[in-house]
């Protein structure tokens, strides 16, 4: 099986869907001849032509609006945000137009809004954001955050085939840093199903995207101390796999939620609430949060390092919780 980077896996996922289904097309800024700021759609225009690889003006509300409009005619648009930070520029279009459509008037809107998110690359406050919670707290959207090349391809294909608007957050730190064997075949990873990234008995870390790898590294180190960590990779934040969350809590009774976006109002809160509701009696210690700080993401490497969760933070908190 070929080794693919996370980025190549995403690219392959979109490419295969475009080959297979003529209703799939791409639009976004600089995605044509240039192939996108991160080269995700490199070569697409040569293969599929400018009709299906539409380079747009810099106008995020128009991009989302046009994608939505096209989806109403039965197309499956895949719209790129050059950086997910710019999704705020299309907030109304996404929240009030796209997300509410099916509930209000019954029209399916099978579109994918994708782009790079996340930090750890010194992108500064406007190129490192993790805006997922806005959309998790916006009924009608699916929010997808893959951690591995295999998942990235399979989730992308699932998102394109899904009949709902999907926000697909590609972690830019992972784009070229991780590689794994990815089947060249047509497979999907279903939306809404978490996966155990590592099994363990002592303590669960619930996380997703780049931090799955942080958690894995910490778990490796902790294992040497005899602490066996279970890592739940959520894969999608909406729908959220409540069953999987409850199961891992039942198994380990101790939970750390690890996320990159800023703490207050983050997904850790939602998970804490779910655990309270569904597994209150199974809990053997407080749910700990390891998260980004409550500020913008600072630019300077020492500051960004301090802002973002690190392996050492995970190890420290895990030790603390283990001995609670």
């Amino acid at each position: 099986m070929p080794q693919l980077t996370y980025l190549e896996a995403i690219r392959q996922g979109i490419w295969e869907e475009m080959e297979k289904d003529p209703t799939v097309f791409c639009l976004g800024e600089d995605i044509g001849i240039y192939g996108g700021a991160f080269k995700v759609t490199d070569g697409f225009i040569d293969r599929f032509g400018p009709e299906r690889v539409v380079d747009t003006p810099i106008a995020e509300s128009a991009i989302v609006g046009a994608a939505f409009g096209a989806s109403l005619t039965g197309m499956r648009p895949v719209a790129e945000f050059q950086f997910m930070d710019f999704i705020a520029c299309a907030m109304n279009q996404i929240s009030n137009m796209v997300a509410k459509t099916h509930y209000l008037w019954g029209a399916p809107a099978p579109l994918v809004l994708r782009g790079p998110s996340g930090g750890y690359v010194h992108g500064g406050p406007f190129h490192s954001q993790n805006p997922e919670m806005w959309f998790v707290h916006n009924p009608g959207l699916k929010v997808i955050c893959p951690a591995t090349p295999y998942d990235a391809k399979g989730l992308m294909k699932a998102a394109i085939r899904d009949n709902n608007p999907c926000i697909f957050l590609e972690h830019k730190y992972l784009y070229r840093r991780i590689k794994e064997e990815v089947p060249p075949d047509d497979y999907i990873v279903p939306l809404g199903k978490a996966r155990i990234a590592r099994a363990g008995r002592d303590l669960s870390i619930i996380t997703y995207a780049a931090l799955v790898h942080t958690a894995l590294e910490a778990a490796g180190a902790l294992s040497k101390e005899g602490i066996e960590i279970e890592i739940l990779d959520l894969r999608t934040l909406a729908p959220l796999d409540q069953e999987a969350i409850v199961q891992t809590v039942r198994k380990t009774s101790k939970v750390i939620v690890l996320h990159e976006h800023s703490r207050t109002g983050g997904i850790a809160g939602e998970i804490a609430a779910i655990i309270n509701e569904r597994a209150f009696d199974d809990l053997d210690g407080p749910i700990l949060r390891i998260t980004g700080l409550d500020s913008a993401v600072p630019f300077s490497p020492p500051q960004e390092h301090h802002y973002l969760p690190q392996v050492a933070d995970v190890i420290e908190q895990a030790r603390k919780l283990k001995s609670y």
Partner: protein
Amino acid sequence: MNSLMSNHKNKPSPNGKRQHKSSTRTYSIPDYRLEVPDYIVRQVRSGDEFRYEVEGDLNTPVPPIRDSNYLSKQQCIEIYRYMLLNRRMETALENLYKQGKVVGGVYFGLGQEACSCASAYALDKDDWFAPMIRNQGSLLVRGFRASDTMMQYMAKAGSPTKGRDGTSHFGDIEKRNMVSPISMLGDLIPVLSGVALGARLQGRNIAVMTYIGDGGQSTGVTYEGINFAAVQNLGLVLFIESNLWAYSTPSEMQYRVKDLAERAIGYGIPGVIIDGTDACQVYDAAREAVERAHGGEGPTLIEAKMMRMKGHAIHDAADYVPKPLFDYWKKRDPITRFENYLVREKKWLSAKENADLIAEVERVIEEEREIAVNSPMPTPESAEGGVYCEDGCHVIKPKYGLPKVRTTKSSAGPKQTEAAVHLK
């Protein structure tokens, strides 16, 4: 990529390099009106209070209807009938409101029926459209029933949104090709452009028509949408309904240019001005724009001048509107004028036929009202479900046929790029 309409005249300057070149540029903004009103509205202090005042000539005679280049007698009568339906439906809604049967407020298109009805009348079946709040007449033309709108206002189970939304906020992607509006103004414009993009990918140049107010057009997304359609050469037919007011704000405080049609210049697309109270002008402008769309010639901006003849919604008595403006535009009532045109000027309808038509319309509206009133309220539990389109809830397929796929000799698989990228 030249402006379609502009004609650049850069003559060399006479007296040397310190002068700039002759900077006169001429553009074509056809103005079909038979009368160009001349007044402005200002915010003035009067005593301890501020109020709006109108200044200008409000005593000009009412212009005639401009003969259509396209409409037959029968078509004129049909549009007239839709305008009557539109107005009677709104009267019925007003009564339902007074009877306490409406949830929330009622929005009226009074004075704008020609614009709603004659515009939508120019669309083909396969074209798409989206109404704004005052275009309840457009819905009738596109085949929705008056009871649909009435049930929306009464939040009935039988309404197109089954109670989940009100007013003209509903859509139909199956038969009538209508996108549901949302309250936020302007967002529909890129959406309709996207509909045209989708259709074109399926091999069809369709027209996509929508409306925006003289107030709503101030939103940035309006121009993102117009520009997208212009650059992509999509068949957007955008009516700017210049009805002088945006809620309580006169258009003078919304923009600084005389005619919003002039905005078309900056987008390299045709801009046209019409009298929005003249159904024939509305139809002709719409039809020409629809034909351009069908011919793949891109978008058209049509500014329809008229006046919102009630308050923003039923709660609003519009006390802020200077009375003389109401008087001026009351004389230009689109239905009265069209009636005169058909009955007196053209004699396409006898007085009897006209009376019969009005009676028939009233009968229809009464029947529709009955249907609407008799629809039950939705159950509480019907608030649940439908947030997502679950498996099997809809079959999604391209509306106009499978897009043709360009075949290239290009590599069978995606590139394996190691190119430099923005952030690593």
